[in-house]
């Protein structure tokens, strides 16, 4: 994992377009993270903090999301990509290194974006879509098994339970981001800096705690 996460030198920052050359094409691969869930779960803020952390760690970074129809309740996805030089803001099918799903069904929905042998970090929360309530389809069981059919590592985080324990269900997103942080080797201080940059002051302490709780909950420890 460390191999494709070499921060570039500060001097090698985004180059002006006029200097694109062939040697750049042999660049190191781009890392792609998909964040998925249900509208209202705070996916866009989580993606924002992740991309900012990537940038603060010296990578070129791009993030894409779509501000869709209703404010709440629809399926929401954000793509975050970082590396030496990132072109497309979207990951290809079967290309994503990580899928961070804020809801169980939304993990399954976006699994085809994950590369063979990728990693899925999933919030153990069920939000039943209206289509299921009205009998158009069933909420699938055994989602972990299906995820394992594609992903090398599947980690389930009880993010809703943790957030409830903290007394605020709005911090599920930061719990999940904290768990993801254990898989990426961005220095701890870049995460903290990104949180400070992107979270309103009023909620910063709460969000920092949620991030720390998520990091604790993740079983993976990065080995340098």
């Amino acid at each position: 994992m460390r191999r494709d996460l070499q921060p570039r030198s500060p001097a090698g920052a985004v180059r002006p377009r006029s200097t694109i050359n062939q040697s750049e094409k042999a660049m190191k691969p781009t890392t792609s993270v998909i964040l998925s869930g249900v509208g209202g779960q705070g996916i866009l803020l989580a993606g924002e903090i992740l991309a900012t952390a990537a940038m603060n760690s010296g990578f070129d970074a791009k993030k894409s999301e779509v501000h869709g129809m209703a404010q709440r309740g629809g399926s929401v996805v954000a793509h975050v990509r970082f590396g030496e030089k990132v072109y497309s803001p979207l990951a290809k099918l079967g290309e994503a290194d990580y899928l961070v799903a804020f809801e169980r069904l939304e993990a399954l929905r976006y699994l085809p974006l994950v590369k063979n042998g990728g990693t899925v970090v999933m919030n153990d929360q069920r939000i039943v879509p209206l289509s299921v309530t009205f009998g158009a389809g069933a909420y699938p069981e055994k989602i972990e098994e299906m995820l394992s059919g594609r992903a090398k590592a599947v980690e389930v985080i009880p993010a809703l339970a943790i957030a409830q324990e903290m007394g605020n269900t709005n911090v599920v997103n930061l719990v999940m981001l904290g768990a993801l942080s254990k898989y990426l080797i961005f220095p701890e201080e870049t995460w903290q800096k990104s949180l400070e940059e992107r979270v309103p002051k009023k909620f910063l302490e709460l969000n920092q705690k949620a991030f720390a709780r998520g990091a604790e909950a993740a079983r993976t420890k990065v080995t340098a």
Partner: protein
Amino acid sequence: MKAFLSGNEAVARGAYEAGVRFAAAYPGTPSTEILENCAKYSEIASQWSTNEKVAMEVTIGASLGGARSLVAMKHVGLNVAADPFFTLSYTGVNGGVVVVSADDPGMHSSQNEQDNRHYARFAKVPMLEPSDSQEAKDFVKVGMEISEAFDTPVLLRMTTRVCHSKSVVELGERAEPPKKTYQKDFAKYVVLPSNARKRHVFVEERTKKLEEYSESFPGNRIEPGEPELGVVTGSVAYQYAREVFPKATFLKLSMSYPLPRKLIREFAGKVKKIVVIEELDPYIEENLKAMGIPVEGKSKIPLCGELSTETVAKAFGEEIKPYALPVEVPIRFPVLCPGCPHSGIYYVLKTLKATVTGDIGCYTLGGMPPLSAMDTCICMGASVGMALGMKKAMGRDSAKRIVATIGDSTFLHSGITGLLDIVYNKGVSTVCILDNGTTAMTGHQDHPGTGKTLAKEQTSKVDYAALARSLGIKDVKVIDPYDLKAVREAFKDSLSRAEPSVVIAQRACVLLDRKRAKAPAVDLEKCNACGLCFLLGCPAMEKADGKPVINEVFCVGCHVCAEICNREALQAL
């Protein structure tokens, strides 16, 4: 200094750096955040206008008054503003003008996916197309320079993916150009036919000069590669193509009207084969073919929908097998929020078997199952006129079932003139203004009915009832959409009248009014699983053995479901 900005934030930053002093817009996805971010710079007088046409006209005024000015809208907004836009091309500007059109390939949040690049050629206005946030910022600045140097508005054509993707941007300082003064110029600014004929000649000469400029515009450039394949592309398609064809020779077109014909011929001479990779219409492709250059484009690349790296790769033969999931994943549509004041209105209209002409906003979702209570949706404001037209065609009796539903912001945008048409032409339609006190769908922007400006300053507030009466509507009712009994009675009464009616359903958007009440309790003894409450389509309701289970995390305690229940099985705690 570097910042991580969305395309929209970058446009606002570009406006700031370019010394823009005035900006206007009507909110519309994917363009909304441009003005929200302009408003963060105190140097830019920023405003929400009533609609895009007004925004364009105010911008023209600001330009003539000497300010560098920017106006932003979504692609269909430019249809609304097309009238002043075309003639602005003739008059030209005083302070520079950049018109931002945010197109929506893929229709993430729009009623069509028209390709607004055609507007540049149609109105004979130079067009710049950024492919990321850095270019979005840079092109606003260069756009202002082009505008003033060539005496023309400049079209900055964005797309959803450019607007809403974030990337790294190098920030610069603000540089205000020397202040311009207003100069009366009858021949330029009063488009009487005698003047406009001369201005048309000017426009044609200007286009020739812009063609020369386009040749040397640094955003139009050849990126060297192997000569086997030449790729012509622009906008975000450039980013996808760069990943799919890392070795090809590229012609990146950032100024796509007028096209740099000499540069295109030079490029054609360097490569053995040319493909054009562009979203939506074959705009560049047809231009190249008209120049006699053989190219491949839409014979391979889809005409419909948004492109992506994989659609481009697939179009050129790369085999991408999507991982097949072992089960079908149930769809998760966007839905009206739990406690949305619109839900009860549509529930009642459904039970009254009304024919509902609908409009653009969150409430368009009232057309989705299980409510399925909307018959039509065309464009901003259309519900009102369509209700009248349907009645004219179907006869007076049918009018007893036709209701137009239109949100507060949409009504002010372009519903008022329709309502006046009903009165003037002796219609008897019922128009329901869904007043939730905000422009909800685009993320809660203020409008003339909220009493606040974009800068959150207090201003005068529209009185919908007084407005309707002044237009000549006598039957005006104001109701609380949570009070289903009152809603039903209001519609029944208004629909039975031989005169036009306005029903104003007033309650704040549930995302703005954060007051919460307890979820109702389900009395499983009383509940007979009739399923009536499920017709509301409330996302806080799940089903077990045919009976409701209230998800207390989502329920806001509006208790509209309890009003629907005939057996008092849903009770306030």
